[in-house]
């Protein structure tokens, strides 16, 4: 999946974020937020008013009358309605793809946890200024977008501005479901949870990780003392103010052992969770440096995974298994398996080619291409 490109910019004095159009716009008013993608040799009929024009030509035969990025190879991956970032250096980065169900905003790179298996390692920088880009994006994306993710880093570190941003989404994209990935720790402060509840977003879900029924275990995994207490109390505060929550559990060598106990803990202490996702690990970010401590062949934790799923499902919770290939899952767990890996980082390996359930299977993370269960094999017999 192509998500960026680089060309040469002319007259682009500052970085801009704009909406892609592949056809010329007749109304000049609508051009001010638009980037014209122009793979043709002839000159556009009217260049005025666009944020920028992108062309694959290294030396267009026509004279540019708008900021231009030329020599951009393969523009065909961009479609009308996409939103892109253009750097003054000619860098083109996709922020939003209208045809994808997997759009998300990387809200901040900062985080107050430091999870052993973080797939998006945090950076200790002040990147608050990027919130302007997020607002700009919300104004440009298709109001019919069904779902938008907000991730990080830890998005709630922007505190009040995070809540204001959610309110803004509510106004601008009332029909777009928001899925926020957060560690929930700041909702330990009840007032913050109340504020988010008051934002009254009609379709928001907070995906919050919990790794153990025991505080010291969870705190170890997220590398933060007191995190369990903050998250668990935060979850209750969110429930109190009517904010739907989802519990997300990444299963690895440090978490699989108490998975059934964690499942029971959830049924007794967090029965209001709208969804529980038991997730396979993405082999990226910190996982690479902590591989020794984290890697376990998923086939080895199937008994714990099955027991946890059973406990949650029989207790009436809505449970899903993410990021696991059907061939390594107990058959009884198949109904819980979801195709959970975002399209842009989803692969199937050679063994999958002749598999009879490939279409139902979520496949693998791109990052698992080299390191994955040794037991992946095509399912040929469906009996």
């Amino acid at each position, binding site marked *: 999946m192509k998500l960026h490109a680089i060309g040469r910019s002319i007259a682009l004095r500052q970085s801009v974020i704009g909406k892609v159009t592949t056809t010329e716009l007749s109304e000049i008013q609508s051009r001010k937020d638009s980037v014209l993608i122009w793979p043709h040799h002839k000159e556009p009929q009217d260049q005025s008013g666009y944020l920028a024009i992108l062309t694959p030509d290294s030396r267009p035969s026509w004279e540019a009358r708008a900021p231009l990025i030329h020599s951009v190879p393969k523009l065909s991956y961009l479609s009308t309605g996409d939103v892109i970032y253009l750097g003054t250096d000619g860098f083109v980065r996709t922020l939003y793809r209208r045809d994808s169900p997997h759009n998300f905003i990387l809200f901040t790179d900062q985080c107050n946890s*430091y999870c*052993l298996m973080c797939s998006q*390692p945090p950076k200790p920088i002040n990147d608050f200024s990027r919130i302007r880009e997020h607002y700009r994006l919300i104004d440009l994306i298709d109001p019919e977008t069904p779902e938008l993710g907000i991730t990080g880093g830890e998005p709630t570190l922007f505190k009040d501005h995070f809540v204001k941003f959610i309110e803004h989404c509510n106004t601008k994209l009332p029909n777009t479901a928001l899925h926020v990935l957060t560690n929930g720790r700041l909702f330990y402060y009840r007032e913050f949870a109340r504020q988010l509840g008051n934002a009254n977003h009609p379709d928001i879900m907070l995906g919050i990780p919990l790794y*153990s*029924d*025991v*505080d*010291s*275990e969870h*705190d*170890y995994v997220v*590398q933060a*003392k*007191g995190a*369990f*207490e903050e998250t*668990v*109390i935060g979850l*209750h505060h969110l429930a109190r103010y009517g904010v739907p929550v989802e519990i997300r559990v990444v299963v690895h060598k440090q978490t699989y052992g*108490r998975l059934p*106990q*964690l499942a*029971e*803990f959830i*049924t*007794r*202490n967090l*029965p209001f969770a709208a969804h529980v996702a038991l997730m396979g690990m993405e082999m990226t970010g*910190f996982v*690479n*440096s*902590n591989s*020794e*401590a984290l890697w376990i062949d998923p086939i080895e934790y199937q008994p714990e995974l099955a027991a946890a*799923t*059973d406990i949650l*499902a*029989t*207790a*009436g919770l809505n*449970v899903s298994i993410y990021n696991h290939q059907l061939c390594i899952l107990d*058959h*009884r767990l*198949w*109904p*819980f398996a979801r195709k959970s890996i975002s399209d842009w980082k989803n692969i199937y390996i050679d063994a999958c080619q002749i598999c009879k359930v490939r279409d139902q299977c979520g496949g693998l993370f791109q990052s698992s291409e080299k390191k994955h269960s040794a037991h992946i094999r095509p399912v040929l017999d*469906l009996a």
Partner: protein
Amino acid sequence: MTQTRFNQREYYALGQNYRFLPFQFMQFDQNRKLLVNEVGEYLFLSNADFDQFVNRKLDTVSDTYLNLKGKHFLFDSDSRAPFELLALKYRAKKSFLAGFTKLHIFVVSLRCEHSCHYCQVSRVSADRALYDMSPETAQRALDLVFRSPAPEIKIEFQGGEPLLNFDGIVRIVEESNRRALETGKNVEFVVTTNLALATDVMLSYFREHNVMISTSLDGPAFIHNANRPRPGNNSHELTVQNLQRAREVLDFDKLSAIMTATRLSLQHPREVIDEYVLRGFQSIFLRALSPYGFAVKTAKTIGYSVEEFLEFYKEALDYIIELNRQGTNLVEIYSQIILTRILTPFTTGYVDLQSPAGAGIGVAVYNYDGDVYASDESRMLAEMGDQQFRLGNVTPTTYEQIFGGDLLRTIVASSSVESMPGCADCAFQVFCGADPIFNCATQGDMVGHRPTSDFHKKNFAIIKHLITLYESDSEIRKIFWAWIHNVPLNQLAIEEVAA
């Protein structure tokens, strides 16, 4: 990134000087203790582990330690989490208290054309003026009902045979609906009837006004008719015919039945259950006789000991489980109630087994003559001459006097298992409840004496039996969860096995 940037597990370890959170325990069997905390979460420990635990010598990195900690039997840091969570769970377990009195029973007529051996109260009489609730009494009773802070109110029509005063029922339904609209409350209705007198007009009225029906079915004809005599000895035939007719008019789930076990029933658990399946019921409530009213007088012929009842209960439950295994969906309601308390963080609205007792604070009875009682059993006791649970009368007594008076306060204070001798340290405390009226009827005072209490014997044995069954077999586990959720076994999510 290098590994050195991460702290090792030991850095986060706690566990020095762990302390106990409140729990009860018992010797469950020879080798194991059962521990139950204040919110109903339980854990089995070997005798050896238990000794280590209570002597604070448990290895703090052992699974046992972590299990105890995860289930809130101990704490080992200044984290607020265990206390916050316990508080919230405690509130959930006691949430039946919210809203105060929800169930209001109207004895619209004491008359009945049946003369059941175990009946506590009814009269075979034609004297309407004497034994029917008058419109004025009903109005004043409704004044009290709508003073209850409960947003959801349930009105149950009882008797006698309430259909003998159908006009009274209609008046109360109409008036309640009017008042519900006025006050923004929600009202549900249920009529407890033997159906023998149910006309098509009545059934249509119940359908139109969303009135549920609870009827009596004691088993096949030879049991039912023996338990429930009426002129012609045809109670079973009538019940079955009328059930059929009622189901043609009302939605299937608006009709339920209850059984009362007599000495005769005890010899035929399978026949009783088969009858429920045959008549299309998906639940059965295995109910013992109450020690009130006529049942006491006839105890010698229809009665039995609590041990005999328990034997029947266990045999019947085994058979019901067997039917479930074979694909018949049949829930035993009493087990469902107790299992919900054991296995979920939630509570049940069952007023006959809660702490403090539901009498007055969960249920109130408005008798045909305007007397207000703390429960159905209270008025039965009154029919036996013991008026001590009479809270007042709709005419002279005010809502405050009835529901805030000394008598009800005494009942509540005397029926909290948390402080009752023999209950306060019982491992099953959270799953159980108290019945001050039963205690008075059988032992002479509200608190009672646990070692000789049939109420205790019955509930203790049933709770222990249910836990034993649940722990014994994974299929029983599934059946019990299906009962808790009231869904067919094959609709439990985990059972949706891919082909």
